[in-house]
């Protein structure tokens, strides 16, 4: 990638950030149209996060919806220190984890001593296959895998979110990787 292309990318990113900040400012003034634009900009990523974390399509839609409603209610406290998207994804993550914590299988699967491996589907192939394979991971392993490998959180952050030790987060990730590698090999 050339230097000028990198500069162009940087300028584009700054422009997008400024446009997003303007939309946030308008939304803070009760401009529902601006908030709808923010929704259209981010629903894809928010829903992908919810879908991968909680697996169930209907529940993922409900959680994505809840994330946007919560974000609206907290919008006045958003000071723009980070990108709106990052702030929104954190809200969505918390909404999903809050839901998952109430599920008994999730609580059980966070215990790394529960090493019962679940069989992976045989018919997985290519991109959709991996998506499906991720959805077949045990709750704990899938959650850590999504947060670490797809969302870019650190083990320290994940340990805090899930109220587990960092070592458990690493072990869950290792478990997820091993299961996914079965599909690839």
């Amino acid at each position: 990638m050339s230097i000028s292309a990198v500069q162009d990318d940087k300028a584009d990113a700054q422009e997008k950030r400024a446009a997003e900040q303007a939309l946030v400012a308008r939304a803070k003034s009760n401009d529902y149209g601006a908030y709808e634009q923010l929704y259209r900009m981010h629903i894809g990523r928010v829903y992908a996060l919810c879908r991968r974390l909680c697996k169930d399509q209907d529940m993922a839609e409900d959680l994505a919806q809840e994330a946007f409603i919560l974000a609206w209610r907290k919008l006045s406290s958003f000071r723009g220190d980070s990108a709106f998207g990052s702030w929104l994804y954190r809200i969505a993550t918390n909404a999903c984890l809050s839901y998952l914590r109430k599920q008994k299988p999730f609580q059980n699967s966070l215990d790394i001593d529960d090493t019962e491996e679940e069989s992976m589907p045989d018919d997985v192939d290519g991109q959709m296959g991996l998506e499906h394979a991720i959805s077949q991971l045990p709750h704990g392993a899938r959650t850590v895998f999504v947060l670490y490998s797809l969302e870019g959180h650190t083990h320290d952050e994940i340990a805090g979110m899930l109220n587990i030790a960092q070592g458990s987060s690493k072990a869950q990730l290792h478990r997820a990787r091993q299961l996914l590698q079965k599909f690839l090999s």
Partner: protein
Amino acid sequence: MCKGSQTSGAMNTIENRHETIRFDNKALVQVNDGIKMTDDTDNVNSTSASSGGLADAVELQLAREIRGLDREIMPQRDLWKAIERNIADYPQRKQFSLQRDWMPYGVAASLIIAITALVVNVVGIEQKGSTLLAADYAIDSIDSGYMNVRNPMVDQFRETNKNLDQATLDDLYRNIEIMAKARKDIETQVRANPENTKLVEMLMRVHERELELLKQDYSQPGRSL
């Protein structure tokens, strides 16, 4: 095994990658136009699966698959209508902020009006030979303007700080009560000594201090009495 992957000991390069993909003990990071696999300092676990060329190749294949995942997935139904219905019940509190923005100017304007009224009325009524009446009239004028500013501020204070714990709120109200009592005491003194201009100045300062107390948002971190 994916085409285009090169395994070479500690470093593995896949062309045309543009972001970091992380694993249990490795991280794929962008280097120039390619990607190298490096030790990931965030994770010190080593695994048998990651040792050896074949295992690295499998990891790289997994990394490629992960990178190929859609960053965005659209829900099957449009969620906006339901969101819009819900957020309509929770309008942003911008009016509240606006009120806070002009409040200091309102306070300043009210105090100027009150002082002007004091001077004009004291001079006017003193000319009629009734200093005591002039003082009473002046204080009533100040109080009237002052209360017009103070009362909405009390409401705003309650609203802004309603999430504080009870002990902190009790402390705040105790301080405001002390200020209010001081104001009343000085007013009494001014009525008794209408020619003492220092007392009038003191009264004005107490007014200002009381309004300052009410104006502050103690619910914000780092704010205290």
